[in-house]
Structures are given as C-alpha cells and as structure tokens.
C-alpha cells in the first residue's frame, strides 16, 4: 500500500477544501470498500480526508413530506429508521440484503453509492481492465462473466454495480446532493452513474472533488407497499446475481402506479421505465407482470455465460409484483 496523509474534517466546506482538486486524494467514510481496494492496490491515494465526523449523520423529514438522508448515515441506521421502514420499506429491505451486520454498521450512504464493481479483473491489478486501466482491454468478455451485465453494457466494459441500496433509491427517484468548492449541486440518482460507453473509468457525473452531502427522497406514496428481493449464490452475505425493487398500487383491478428497478444487471442500478409504462393502467394480472418484464428485458444482450440472468430477472419481476398484488388484496 502506498503511504498517505490522513486528515479528519469537521465541517463540509473544510472537507471539500482538504480534498481540493488533488486527483490523488479520496474521501474516507466507512472504509469498507476504499480500504479493501487500497490493500489490493486498485486505489493508491496520497491523502485521505475522513468524513465520518461531518454533521451529515441525520435523517430528517423534508417539508414536502420526503426524507433527507445525510451522506454519513450508516447503512444500519438507514435501514432501522422508523420513517424509512414505514414509508419506503423496499429501502430498508435493500440495505439489509447487503453485506453483513458489521459492515452495515461501518458503511455509509455516500460510500455505498460510490462503491466500485466486484468484477474480479477490476480488483486484480495483474490483469487488464478498461475500467481500472483505460485502454488495457476487458478480459471479462471472453473470460469469467457469469455475474456481469445484461443491460446497458458496452464493448469496453460489462461490469455490474454491486449496490443493493442504490437499486431501491433508483426506484424511489432519489436525488443526490453534493458540494464542491464552487457551491452545492444535485443529481437525480438516475443521472449519477454515467453510461458505460467507451469510458468505463468515468463512473459518475459528480464534478471533481465533489463531496456527497446527502440523498433526498421525495414523497412516494406507492412505496408504502414495496419490496426488495435479491437472488444470490448463498442465502446471506453475498452480492446479488439479480435483484428487484418494486412498488405497486392497484385500484379497481388495474395498476394505478408502479415503481420498478433491477440490480446486478448493469453498470448502474437499472430503473425499469419501459416495464413501468407497460404496467401502469393495465389489468393487475400475472400476464401484465410478465409482459412488463419482457418489455424491459427485450433490450437485454447477454454474454455467453450469463443468459440465465434474463430468465432470472423475468421470473423474479413477475414473482415480486405478484407478491405485492397478493398483499394488496389482503
């Protein structure tokens, strides 16, 4: 590991100033991803700016009826918060589906959003990887890619974003707030992650040096009945091979409102807008749910070893929507 300077920031502008425009400096939150990547040599920062003592550790009700979640709120505190549990249950479920109790106590909202892919070539510095070393190639395409992308990938990179939390946030129209030396800014979660194109090393639309200060959730009444379901290779403590965040409001036998996002299928959480358009207004039946899944997955371009994900996501979507519909009927 390279030697580095360590600074602890106590206020937001101080943190932004400490980082400055130094391309070699990184914010340190829970460290659960950054410290790991520093050990493997993927990240080699010359300075860390510790943000955990910033006053960004609160969850507050917003005047519009939404919630403001500070960037340093731990994953555990987010999942346990009564307003999150009652108004956005899919978010609590998504966070609890990720990592372990120990890691969720350390991991923060900001760090979770910016965690890097678990593609094995990305984390192995002896291998080429366009995302880590632009232009070096992508061994995953012809190599190990059973958990890689089926949607929105490119010739240069087929990695998936590993976050569970971000999938629920995508379905909930979350907005990411940040601060730079030039002032404050915001990005809808949908626009936080850049399309892969031929620049997979450019992962987010955040300006250089931006500190994420929080995530705002608008009021989403449909989310009161919502669910996150994750499929993985063991029952707990593993990354997703496919996941669905869904909310459903059924009135008079038809879908009045719906939210749907997929995880572990693309380089970013995948908001399934095509499926949502198919759902809204249609009869609340299994046929509709299957048609919605098929419409979204029509764009899937699986690789030789991950075609199973298309079937998995189809069946998972139908199952979760059917469960929500059954619950509504009770």
């Amino acid at each position, binding site marked *: 590991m390279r030697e580095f300077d360590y600074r602890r920031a106590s206020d937001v502008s101080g943190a932004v100033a400490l980082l400055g425009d130094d391309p070699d400096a990184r914010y340190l939150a829970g460290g659960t991803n950054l410290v790991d990547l520093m050990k493997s040599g993927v990240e080699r920062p010359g300075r860390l700016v510790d943000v955990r003592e910033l006053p960004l550790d609160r969850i507050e009700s917003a005047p519009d009826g939404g919630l403001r979640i500070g960037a340093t709120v731990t994953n555990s505190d987010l999942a346990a918060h009564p307003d999150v549990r009652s108004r956005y249950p899919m978010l609590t479920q998504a966070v609890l589906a990720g990592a372990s109790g120990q890691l969720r106590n*350390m991991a923060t909202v900001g760090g979770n959003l910016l965690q890097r892919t678990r593609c094995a070539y990305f984390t192995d510095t002896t291998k080429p990887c366009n995302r880590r070393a632009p232009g070096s190639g992508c061994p995953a395409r012809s190599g190990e890619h059973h958990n890689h992308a089926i949607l929105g990938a490119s010739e240069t990179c087929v990695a998936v974003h590993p976050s569970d939390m971000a999938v629920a946030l995508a379905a909930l129209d979350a907005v990411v707030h940040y601060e730079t030396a030039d002032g404050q800014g915001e990005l809808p979660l949908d626009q936080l992650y850049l399309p892969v194109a031929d620049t997979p090393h450019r992962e987010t639309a955040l300006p250089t040096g931006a500190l994420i200060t929080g995530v705002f959730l608008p009021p989403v009444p449909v989310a009161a009945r919502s669910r996150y379901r994750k499929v993985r290779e063991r029952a707990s403590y593993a990354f997703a091979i496919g996941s669905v965040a869904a909310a459903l409001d059924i009135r008079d036998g038809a879908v009045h409102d719906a939210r749907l996002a997929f995880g572990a299928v693309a380089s970013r959480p995948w908001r399934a807008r095509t499926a949502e358009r198919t759902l809204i207004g249609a009869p609340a039946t299994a046929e509709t749910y299957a048609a919605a899944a098929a419409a979204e997955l029509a764009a899937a371009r699986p690789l030789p070893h991950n075609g199973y994900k298309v079937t998995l996501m189809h069946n998972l979507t139908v199952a979760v929507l059917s469960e929500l519909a059954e619950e509504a009927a009770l």
Partner: protein
Amino acid sequence: MGLATSSVITLHINGEKHTLPVDHRTTLLDALRERLDLTGTKKGCDQGQCGACTVLVDGHRTVACLQLAVAAEGREITTIEGVADGDRLHPVQQAFIDLDGYQCGYCTPGQICSAIGMLAEHAAGWPSAASGDVRPAAGPTPLTPEEIRERMSGNLCRCSAYTSIVEAVARAAEADASSAAGVPEPLGEAAA
C-alpha cells in the same frame, strides 16, 4: 499542504488509553494484534469477508481489518479481552462454553463480539433480512434461529460449528431477557 504519513494516536480500548505512533496504513486489526499485544481479535481474510476480526466500536460491531487505526482514534473500542466483567464471563461467552459453540476456536472471539453487538441491535428493534414485514407497525421480531443465522451471517466458521453457535446465541439471548445483568447497552435509534 504538508504530508504526514504517520501520526501519534491515542486509542481507547477496553477502558484503557494507549498512545502509540502509527503509520497511517496500519489497520485497527494490526494495531491491536501487532502493536498492543491484544491477539484475541483474529485475522482471517483481512478483507471484511469472514468476521474473525469483529470488535465493538462505540458499542457497534464492526470489522477491524477494514478500519484504519488512525481513523479509530477517539472511539471506544471493545475487544474480546474486554467483554467479561472481571472474572465473570459475559453471558455470551458463558453460553459458547456451555453449548460448545466452537471447535478450533479461531472464529470464536469474532463470533462472541458479533453476537454481543447483534443482541443489542435486536434489543433496539432493528429488523433483519429475515424479518418478513419490516414496518414498525409489524412489531419487534422474535429472535428465532432463522433470525440468528441471518444476523450472524457476517461470521464464518471454517469448522462449521454453526449449529451450536446458533444455540449458544439463543441461550445468551434468553439470559439477557431474564436478567438485567449482561443486557447490552441499548443502542440509540437513528436520529429521528
């Protein structure tokens, strides 16, 4: 800006203060084991994947291998060496002994620290991925074996002593419920 790659820090561990110079690259785990001779905390994977290095930080269970020692300055750290009350074992320790919650014992300090933190989380009403309905109106989740397995899934046991680990944690939870002694400090709710 001046560049410092090491610092003199003071760690608060098991109620004692330890002042030591550290290279910033030192993890809390390596500081405990290599610098402070607190070798009860074990190193398994060194990548956050096994839970052998679990310690309590400000009452919350965490993994020591992904924390930098310099970042742990100012926090209250409790390791396996600090969970007993003098000669009286912590109820979770006692339950692991009574029910053989181990074989080789390598994962045990991490399992015990994790269980102590987990019981406090459960007592504070935190749901888990095994809790069906997470809405507060659904009420607190009983600590079933399924809940224990899910909540303890961050601790791997290569001897696969899981059956008795789950029994030991369940026994300790009963002990908590029936005697005030050993009830972990309640955790605060997230800022509401």
